[in-house]
């Protein structure tokens, strides 16, 4: 197991390397550049050249790339061109919000999706089954940002059950250590701060969870249906095991493999969906920062962002592969 994880982590290196080269060339090929963002349309050719020189953008691309890699090895992503602050600092401040939102959405999607998919399969053809199949078809067809607006309009603005915007109420004076607001609240034992942060996560979390939830329900249902038809389930029932044991040991366990795979693949979708949701709820995560970085062609920020996304994506999928062997002892990771 340990060797498997180490090998997979090592395999990540060439993929990241290739990705970074492609991106580096692609981003630097784009017209415009940070000097346009800094000077606007007014800059003279001389002042533009001066800025490019001060940022080291006049050097040959391979040279710039070499510098990028050298810093990357030291976990230094450089300095943001527009905010003049360390990219790592910026990310540490903003990424936790997005990660919290993504985790919240995942918890909702898995926590509701797997039981619902399971029940739908067990009571095939029932009202519950039809409702969850129909609901999951519909769920993939509703644009996230529209759902976010509808939820916000109904539950936050009209009913006032949830806060409309932000990550935490301004009146709460919370101490922030990690910038994961929920975690901070728990660490500092400021329970009301943690609860308030969770409260702010619920509506955006539901909006973001809609598509993954629909997919998880559908896959769980199909997978459980397939397992229920297997001989070993009939055998287990025939030898007199209680329904609980059959359900836990035989059905659910065998049905979880495809579900785990889909969860791994959904991470990428969730992270880009988070940007849309953050916009609607004015949630201070990475979304707005990345949108600005894109329009200003803030190279260090963009490169760093994609590298981090790629690493997260790879790590989540590694976790999924490791979980296979926990779910199914026959799967040996090598």
């Amino acid at each position, binding site marked *: 197991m340990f060797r498997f994880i180490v090998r997979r982590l090592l395999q990540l290196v060439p*993929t990241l390397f*290739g*990705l970074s080269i*492609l991106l580096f060339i*692609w*981003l630097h090929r*784009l*017209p*415009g550049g940070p000097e346009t963002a800094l000077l606007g349309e007014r800059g003279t050719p001389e002042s533009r050249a001066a800025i490019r020189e001060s940022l080291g953008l006049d050097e040959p691309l391979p040279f710039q790339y070499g510098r990028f890699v050298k810093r990357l090895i030291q976990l230094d992503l450089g300095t943001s061109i527009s905010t003049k602050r360390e990219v790592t600092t910026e990310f540490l401040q903003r990424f936790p919000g997005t990660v919290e939102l993504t985790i919240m959405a995942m918890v909702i999607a898995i926590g509701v999706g797997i039981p619902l998919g399971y029940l739908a399969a067990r009571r095939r053809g029932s009202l519950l089954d039809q409702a969850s199949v129909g609901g999951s*078809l*519909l769920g*993939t*067809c*509703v*644009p*996230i*940002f*529209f759902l976010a*607006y509808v939820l916000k*309009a109904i539950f936050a603005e009209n009913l006032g059950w949830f806060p409309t915007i932000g990550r935490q109420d301004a009146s709460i004076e919370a101490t922030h250590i990690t910038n994961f607001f929920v975690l901070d609240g728990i660490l500092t034992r400021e329970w009301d701060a943690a609860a308030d942060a969770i409260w702010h996560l619920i509506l955006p979390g539901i909006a973001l969870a809609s598509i993954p939830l629909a997919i998880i329900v559908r896959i769980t249902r199909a997978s459980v249906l397939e397992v229920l038809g297997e001989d070993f389930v009939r055998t287990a029932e025939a030898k007199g095991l209680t329904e609980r044991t059959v359900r836990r040991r035989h059905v659910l366990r065998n049905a979880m493999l495809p579900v785990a795979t889909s969860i791994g693949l959904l991470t*990428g979708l969730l*992270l*880009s969906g988070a*940007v*849309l949701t953050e*916009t609607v709820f004015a949630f201070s995560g990475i979304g707005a920062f*990345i*949108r600005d970085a*894109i*329009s200003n*062609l803030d190279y260090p920020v*963009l490169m760093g*962002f*994609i590298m981090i*996304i*790629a690493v997260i*994506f*790879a790590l989540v999928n590694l976790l999924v592969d490791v979980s296979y062997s926990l779910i199914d002892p026959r799967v040996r990771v090598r």
Partner: protein
Amino acid sequence: MTLAPGRGKKVKLDRLAELSAVRDDERGVSLWREAMRRLRRNPAAIVGAVILVLFVLVAVVGPFFVPYGTTDTMGIREGVVKSGQGIIPGPSADHWLGYDHQGRDEFSRLVVGARQTLIVGIVSTLIGLTIGVFLGGLAGAAAGLGGRWGRALDNVLMRIVDMMLSLPSLLLAVSVAALLGPSIVTVMIAVGVVSVPIFARLLRGSMIAQANRDYVLAASSLGVRGSKIAISHILPNSLAPVIVQATLTLATAIIEVAALSFLGLGNPDSAVPEWGLMLADAQPYLGIRPGLAIYPAVGIIITALGFTLLGEAMREALDPKLRR
């Protein structure tokens, strides 16, 4: 297997492989014909098909019959629409869905927007399909038939596809927008390119599964060249999941396009109505006239649902596990 009856006949040996791949399309037992038969009996497929027929009809014919021009700001000219003061009249006998925030007829814009949405969905799916089928087909052919070099080529191609998979669609869209300026073409390219990995992986997987079938062995033992086997034998037999995926991708493409328009990457000029842009434009007026957001959103949802229903039903109909 449906191929079985053809094999018993005394046919010329060197055409055996072609026959097993092509000939069963001409007889009643073909995969596609059986799938059609099962599709017709599936209520979800009927509903999906009806939605799509209506949508295509509206998109193709509708714009010729709309009551008003889509750029005519009659509401402001006549002084009935004052968006700044929060006055946007709702549905009436003359304007079935009321005015939009610039005093244009909402119903006309919705109908013309259907055409734009259909075009954008189809073009972006075609972009993804073309590149994906090319990459996946090459990788699948290389992996299935090519020996050591083939496996190496397959490996390189699939690593490229993996990298594309980890690129957030948003970033791709914005970098295309930086290159071409925000326009509907930008959005189509971005949405299309994002769907490339799915098509490539599906086709590759399906081709590798086909590479071990008897008819491939038959063809190759008859001395048919590897490239010919891949193109005229394996590829046609591997396309079913790709076609199903294309139907489902049409649904996601329409939604993705709306999302990118919403973020301001689409056509900045609202003269050509597009549902995503209409939805985005309606945001400031949600409190006054929520309908302006609801109409295009319902349009998007129903259309996406039509493609999804039909796609899922096709997947079921073509699934060999469910065939009787």
